[in-house]
């Protein structure tokens, strides 16, 4: 039998590490490919040039989702003047999964821009990947839904979401959970019907359809009215693409959109690091224990020899 000396052990160890590292890298590169969304998933194209700020969508959402009564009637336009304690406009909450905000834009003939927002239902949702109890699901229809019975209320998804959408039921002292728009999945989307807000909108600000068709429609609108629209469909590519996409006649950063959000899904920022974690946890302990034993081998032999003589 071949005697294992220090040199051959180290050689074997290094080669083994290289092989494992190699397979880890190839796995990682295949995992890095963007998911890009389910092929026939649905979406909504929101055209801000058409919104008149009537808040019918907010009322419809409230009714459909069985949310608590609002603080002010849905025909009360004074909400547009509300500024929250953090100096920002209204945002989604446990009582409102969708919000319309007003943005005054200089020299816009049609007056202020009304911007509806809600969960954008990302193709690769950061909330989903950040959730350690797997409460979130991206359905084939395109909705990002969640199971409140699983939610432990850790609020990691609130931090992970690049759009600051998930809200928290702070009013519930016993079992606070995450609250957000589910694109009316349970009651409508599952059956091929549009979300309640889309159906309620008098101006047809929102167009419901297959996401791939909506991109075609959005591009056609820009093409047929190039002087009116900003040449960009927000959400087509942002953070890996979202089911809800937006058209505007004013630059998106002027109506509260983050235009520096990038086109990478949020998961891609941590994917590489996360692939290394199992390798570090499994190989490093064995490898360094081996190094430690080898380094102390002579010491151990020394201690053994005297006992052998006796």
């Amino acid at each position: 039998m071949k005697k294992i000396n220090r040199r051959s052990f180290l050689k074997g160890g290094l080669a083994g590490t290289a092989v494992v590292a190699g397979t880890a890298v190839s796995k990682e590169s295949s995992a890095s490919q963007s998911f890009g969304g389910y092929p026939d998933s649905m979406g909504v194209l929101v055209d801000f040039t058409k919104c008149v700020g009537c808040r019918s969508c907010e009322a419809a959402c409230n009714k459909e989702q069985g949310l608590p009564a609002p603080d002010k009637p849905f025909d009360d336009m004074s909400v547009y003047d509300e500024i929250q304690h953090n100096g920002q406009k209204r945002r989604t909450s446990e009582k409102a999964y969708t919000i319309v905000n007003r943005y005054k834009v200089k020299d816009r003939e049609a007056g202020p821009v009304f911007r509806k927002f809600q969960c954008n239902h990302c193709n690769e949702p950061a909330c989903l990947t950040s959730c350690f109890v797997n409460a979130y699901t991206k359905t084939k229809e395109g909705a990002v839904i969640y199971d409140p019975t699983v939610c432990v209320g850790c609020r990691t998804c609130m931090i992970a979401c690049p759009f600051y959408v998930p809200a928290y039921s702070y009013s519930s002292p016993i079992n606070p959970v995450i609250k957000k728009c589910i694109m009316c999945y349970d009651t409508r989307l599952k059956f091929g019907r549009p979300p309640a807000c889309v159906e309620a909108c008098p101006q047809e600000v929102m167009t419901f359809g297959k996401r791939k068709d909506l991109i075609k429609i959005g591009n056609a609108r820009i093409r047929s009215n190039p002087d009116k629209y900003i040449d960009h469909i927000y959400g087509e590519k942002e953070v890996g693409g979202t089911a809800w996409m937006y058209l505007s006649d004013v630059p998106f950063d002027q109506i509260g959109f983050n235009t520096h959000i990038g086109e990478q899904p949020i998961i891609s920022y941590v994917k590489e690091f996360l692939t290394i974690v199992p390798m570090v946890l499994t190989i490093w302990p064995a490898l360094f224990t081996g190094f430690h034993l080898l380094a102390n081998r002579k010491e151990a032999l020394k201690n053994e020899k005297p006992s052998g003589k006796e």
Partner: protein
Amino acid sequence: MTQVRKKIILLLITLALAGWPAAHCLAESGPESATLDRLANLYEAVNFNHSAHVDITEGNCAECHHHTTGAVPTNPKCLKCHPGGQESDSMACQDCHSAKRFEVAYLTEIESNTQLYHIDKPGLKGAYHQKCMGCHQTTGGPTGCQDCHVRNEKGDEFFHAGNFSPAPVAHNGGH
């Protein structure tokens, strides 16, 4: 030369005059008024005064009815397929603008029918509001929701307004 030119001008004037009553008659053949009650679950029906709007648009039916009355479309893009002069089978909004715009059957049709050009045609509610509001905003017509359709009790409940208004909150937010 001048004689010929005069004749041509006269001919043009005659043609224009002949065309005018034709267009006018077409407009006159429209209904006096129309009842719009698609949103009757939330609002009282709208009694749309059609003849008043014929007067407002000075008989230019294409302002609302596009090319369907046989009028020449104002948008050059439409002219490519609708040169004018062809009256459509129907001029009613709902016969082109579907009240079921987002239902599966409609979505399947616009996806599978590759010959279909108008894949982005507004549904009936959208068509009404975009057309009405678009014009009212520029011409100073009424633009408030209830200026055209007054909410009924179900509408008040839907909007949490009127008798269904929430109790006023003394102070909003704790900070």
